[in-house]
């Protein structure tokens, strides 16, 4: 990043100077604090309304669109879970997303290791090849993906179509993961691995026992960053899978047709789709913020 080019010398000289006048800052400061908190409300209000709606009855909601769930009612959730098929969608979402992330991260960490640690012919070209994927809108290949998956299902009828979706998803996570992990591997000191090599450890052993543990924080970031868009995707399951194999976002499109104007039940479906990510976010805010800004440290 550009900031790393700043020299240390300047700092000490500037720090000694007196501070700027305070008062104006305070007035502006109060206004900005208010602005920040008002917007925080605007950012959260729709999500809170969604949660409230999901706990109210249809009747209540139709009479009073904006209101508190004074008598919380979980009937909407059970309706969405059983009648709306969310039990099926939920399991599909978990299975497909988790396996895609594991596979995508697994192959990426394998590939990033030689790209970050070795010199070999074609390394630059290979890095660029992976990097190009960061900008490819993969949905534009939806029609051929459909044919590919179809012919794979035809020639390997024993394999569930969901497996091929997982492959597509895993492939889509490769560019970002390889990019981030390569940078991490590059920064690790050589000494550890040299010591191990002198002890006679093989490449795979060095990789698995020494290198992978060292990039574990990056692995978390990379895994999270595949997880979010895959969990949220509705497009590929819609195109590739049968309806009983659908994930939560795809299932929502059907749910909204069936329950049309039952806004409370629909809200429960939205909450079920969203909760896992919110929990994940609250648990791992730091890694998510780190990942979001990772693209900048080129």
């Amino acid at each position, binding site marked *: 990043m550009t900031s790393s080019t700043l020299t240390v010398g300047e700092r000490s000289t500037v720090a000694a100077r007196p501070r700027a006048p305070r008062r104006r800052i305070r007035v502006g400061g109060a206004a900005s604090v208010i602005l920040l908190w008002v917007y925080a409300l605007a950012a959260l209000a729709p999500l809170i309304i969604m949660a409230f709606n999901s706990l109210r009855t249809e009747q209540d909601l*139709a009479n009073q669109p904006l209101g508190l769930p004074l008598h919380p009612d979980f009937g909407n959730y059970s309706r969405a879970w059983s009648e709306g098929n969310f039990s099926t969608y939920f399991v599909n979402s978990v299975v497909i997303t988790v*396996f895609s992330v*594991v*596979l995508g991260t*697994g192959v990426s960490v394998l590939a990033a290791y030689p790209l970050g640690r070795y010199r070999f012919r074609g390394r630059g070209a290979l890095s660029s090849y992976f990097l190009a994927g960061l900008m490819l809108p993969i949905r534009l290949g939806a029609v051929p993906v*459909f*044919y590919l998956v*179809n012919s794979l*299902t*035809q020639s390997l*009828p*024993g*394999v*569930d179509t*969901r*497996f091929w979706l*997982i492959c597509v998803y895993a492939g889509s996570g490769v560019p970002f993961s390889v990019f981030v992990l390569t940078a991490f591997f590059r920064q690790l000191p050589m000494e550890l691995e040299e010591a191990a090599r002198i002890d006679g450890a093989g490449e*795979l*052993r060095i*990789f*698995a026992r020494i290198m992978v543990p060292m990039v574990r924080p990056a692995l978390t970031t990379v895994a999270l960053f595949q997880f979010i868009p895959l969990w949220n995707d509705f497009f590929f399951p*819609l*195109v*590739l899978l*049968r*309806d009983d194999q659908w994930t939560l976002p795809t299932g929502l*499109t*059907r749910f909204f*047709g*069936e329950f*049309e*104007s039952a806004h409370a039940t629909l809200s429960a479906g939205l909450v079920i789709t969203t909760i896992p990510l919110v929990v994940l976010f609250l648990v791992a805010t730091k890694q998510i913020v780190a990942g979001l800004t990772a693209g900048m440290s080129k």
Partner: protein
Amino acid sequence: MRKFCALVAALGATLALPACAPSTSGGGGKVHLTVETWRPEDTAGYQKIFDAYEKKHPKVVVDYKPIKSTDYLTVLPNELKKATGGPDVVQLKPYGPLQSYIKAGNLVPLDGQVNVSGWQDKVLQAAKGKDDGKLYGVPYALQTLGILYNKKIFADQGIQPPKTWADFTAACDKLKKAGITPMATSGLQPWVLAIDHQIFGATREGGNDFEQAVLTGKKDFTDPDYTASLQTVADLKQYFPNQVTAVDYPDAQTLFTSGKAAMYPGGSYEIGPFTKTTPDLQIGWFDAPPAPGAKVNQPLTSGYVDGSFGVNAHSEHKSEALELVKWMATPEFGQLYASTLKQISTVPGTTPGDPLLTQAYQGYQQHGATYIMVVDFGYGNPLGRDQEGLALQKMLGGTSAADAGKLVQKGISAWFKPSGG
């Protein structure tokens, strides 16, 4: 590393295992037939119907697989392309949308296989290939268009189902004054507006004479009678819900079923779901009176075939699937379908059990008209229905009727060539 390999292997195994049992052939030597439709709301009804079939065909189990209607057109082509594991019998949209499946060879021709003697040509046309004239599906239901009304509100306000346009607008004014939305409809969904136009405008444009004139090239959609019929609908805006262009289809349904609106221009297909979700709602039915300046001086009941059932060319149980579709052309299925799902069956000799449907069906038989934007102009991009709805949306936003007519003509003429002249 070994752990990782084990993980990958485990991953592969868990995925492969459940897939070992293909869904179409279960245990006990029974053949499982998958029937794919866009009617999730009819699941219980269809299961009842197919139970009757399974009783007579003990070797067959019919699996009913509904998909949300708005996704069906996306899902079905993909399902039909599957070489294995696809559905056996599929519900097919009528007229236009059927054609690309026929061209791609996705469906089995049914000529000589099913008995459709005594069926109206007009009905069978919904399931025929436009190029080869062969039959690819067995039509199941006829839909009619008209105005549903809330009997209680009409009684409370002292309103009778109107016979003339003046009575009709007077009733609307009275309702409006009483704080009741006269008519619930959706201006957000183009296809709903197209249905409104068919209901209120058919008499003005000239019904079946106009249809023939356009098909043979004597008239087109810039014709003053047609644009005047568009204007008829636009002039009703004052009786539609506030901000009608923002009202979505389910909102319009709710306005009517919750008693906030007194009338609902729509199809006979609404009656079943309405009475199911709101059992205490008393629904009546009447045909729109002839519009001012109408070319046809009696009410018209417009109708069209809802769709058909066809056999997937990639079906792994083609003969069993054909057997099922054959049954769907019999009065037994037709009557069962009509009474279970409250629909008008296309099978000759059946009667709808529901009194409202009987009324609508009689109207269609006595003074029927074709829903031309679906029946005749549903074969290309853009669909006539969508284009007409788009033109009406623009009119509700202030575009003139003449310009709206030009827009419809532009869309239809992009792919339609008249037969005559």
